[in-house]
């Protein structure tokens, strides 16, 4: 399973903070995982299509072609605004 987390507006717009998804051929990269989740419905497609969306694989900011393995933690979130 892949543990998927959502933060800030992404979490709020999806109405979901966390989910688990079975690792598959489609989820082998961050982009593949995003596309798989985007196929949930129109709302998910729209939120996850944002060109500002960031992805972290195992708590490290990653590129969209980053490999995702079974057991990984993948988080989707908007640009950060702390400080």
């Amino acid at each position, binding site marked *: 399973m892949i543990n998927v987390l959502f*933060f800030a507006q992404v979490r709020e717009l999806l109405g979901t903070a966390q989910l688990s998804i079975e690792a598959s051929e489609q989820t082998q990269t961050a982009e593949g995982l995003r596309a798989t989740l985007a196929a949930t419905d129109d709302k998910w497609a729209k939120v996850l299509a944002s060109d500002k969306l960031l992805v972290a694989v195992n*708590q490290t900011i990653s590129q969209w072609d980053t490999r995702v393995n079974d057991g990984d933690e993948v988080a989707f979130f908007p640009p950060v605004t702390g400080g």
Partner: protein
Amino acid sequence: MRLLPNVRVQTVDFNVADEYHQLAQDNSDGAVVTFVGKVRDFNDGSVVTDLTLEHYPGMTERILEQIVAEARERWPLNKVTVIHRVGTMALGEQIVFIGVTSAHRKAAFAACEFLIDFLKTKAPFWKLEAGDKGKNWVEAKDADEQAAQLWQHKS
């Protein structure tokens, strides 16, 4: 002597006098520089009444420690404290504390500024503002990203 970075993410407020006291103990340091970020009553022309900070537990602490390690590589620092609050804060409340000590002021000032620039653009915190127009997620600013990128070319 190098001490482990004092990095904290917490809901409770911090006391600047206590933090200063802890930073200022070493007589080999001639400089202590601190920065405090507060909740202000406006943003982009809108009234702000309170602010909620969300973060990514686990990743936040890792990133903050990486940023502190990078600052230590760039400047001869002794003590470093980074505190970032999460949860809901009222107007005027303290959000973030950065404190650095060094033998000389230049390194301490530069490291403090570097830390806040990197924290604003690399650490997974998000601000949700409440105001007279409802709740609004704060947008990332290009200027903050440019400030962080400038550090690639200066010391």
